[in-house]
């Protein structure tokens, strides 16, 4: 690994000015579980690494009636360790629990998972399903971007020179709503998703009809994919197996995966349908207040 300069920023402004001065030779460090590996394996180079874990805004979260504001640097273990988050955003917890093993979760943040912008990242379908807004700070001030527009290509995103992701804003958990994330890997833990699927639904008060839904997939395209049409098609449909199967067929049709050692193109398309159906079932059951565990 080449040597680099290391700085600890304590405010957003300080981080932005450090990053802006070095441009694409500077990298933000949160948990380091992607960055340190990439620097060590010379997949990335940096002259400056800026640790942002001492910036209060990035390592705090608040859950109110307005929703969840999640600091970009909050590690996974704090997310699934919070009972109120487990209740309000179970799909986020599904993702946080499976990013690496425990040692990784002690460090890995959702912000880092998003900014690394892997097509197979396990939090991004969840963030898309929950319709998260990304808060970004940069030399020109603050801006927001809907998470479905954040990733632009494998490892690339909308962040410009000097910009920092500060917070992820989750809309308030609506009544009769639920979310879920599922991925398929050949072993039970610690692997990269062959396909990942996130779903969010809001049901009517009887729990019978889907009022709104958002579906997203990982590892079936160069970026995580929001299934806009398939999501819109669910509105007004009964929450029944026939409906879930329609969504599954739409997901398989829209997936445009690659062949690689983890799975063939055909296999991934099939899996995309299966996992969308199952995550939709999970989201619906949670929206009805029932228990649903992705790991059984």
């Amino acid at each position, binding site marked *: 690994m080449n040597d680099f300069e290391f700085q600890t920023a304590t405010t957003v402004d300080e981080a932005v000015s450090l990053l802006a001065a070095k441009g694409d030779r500077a990298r933000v460090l949160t948990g380091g579980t992607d960055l340190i590996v990439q620097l060590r394996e010379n997949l990335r180079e940096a002259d400056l690494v800026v*640790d942002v874990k001492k910036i209060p805004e990035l390592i705090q979260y608040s859950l109110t009636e307005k929703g969840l504001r999640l600091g970009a640097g909050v590690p996974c273990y704090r997310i699934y360790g919070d009972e109120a988050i487990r209740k309000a955003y179970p799909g986020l917890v599904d993702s946080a629990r499976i990013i690496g*093993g*425990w040692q990784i979760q002690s460090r890995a943040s959702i912000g880092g998972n998003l900014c690394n912008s892997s097509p197979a990242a396990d939090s991004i379908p969840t963030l898309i399903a929950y319709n998260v807004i990304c808060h970004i700070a940069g030399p020109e001030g603050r801006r927001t971007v809907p998470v479905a527009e954040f990733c632009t290509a494998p490892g690339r995103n909308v962040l410009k020179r000097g910009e920092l992701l500060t917070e992820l804003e989750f809309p308030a958990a609506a009544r009769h709503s639920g979310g879920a994330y599922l991925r398929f890997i050949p072993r039970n833990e610690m692997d990269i998703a062959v396909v990942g699927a996130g779903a969010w639904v809001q049901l009517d008060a009887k729990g019978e009809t889907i009022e709104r839904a958002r579906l997203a997939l990982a590892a079936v395209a160069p970026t995580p994919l929001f299934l806009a049409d398939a999501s819109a098609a669910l509105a007004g449909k009964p929450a029944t197996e026939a409906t879930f199967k329609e969504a599954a067929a739409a997901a398989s049709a829209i997936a445009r995966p690659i062949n690689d050692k983890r799975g063939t193109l055909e296999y991934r398309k099939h899996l995309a349908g299966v996992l969308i159906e199952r995550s939709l079932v999970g989201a619906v059951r949670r929206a009805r207040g029932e228990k649903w565990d992705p790991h059984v």
Partner: protein
Amino acid sequence: MVRKTHVATTINGEPVEFLCEARQSLLEVLRETLGLTGSKEGCNNGNCGACTVLLDGQPVDSCLVLAVEVEGAQITTIEGLSKDSRLHPIQQCFLEDAALQCGICTPGFIMSAKALLDRDPNPSEHAIRFQLAGNLCRCTGYDKIIRAVQDSAKRMAGQNK
């Protein structure tokens, strides 16, 4: 000349200061600068868990922590577990249950097991397997390791009575 940074931290309850380069991992500094060679390097990329230490009480892969990040932190390594040259019950159970062969993975497993038992003194087998999924062993097989953690839980419960 490479710039070195001064870092002040606490390791196994003792204040420790060292100089390091920004690119050096905590694992490298523990082993090569501080002579604490109990933490092992298996993969150097976060997959095997042989380098597990507790950072402010949380298990982390020390190969994926920059040494410059631990300024002001509390670190526990495998060297911090025995007291007055008596092995920690988890260490004792790994020995008695033959939960190791080459031993490279052992310090990491023991640190993860400690983190688990500190939070959940009576974990289910499922919980043990799930929480230790970030530790790999290529010799022993996992059943003996799981049994050693279960026996550790019993022994520690007995000691706390």
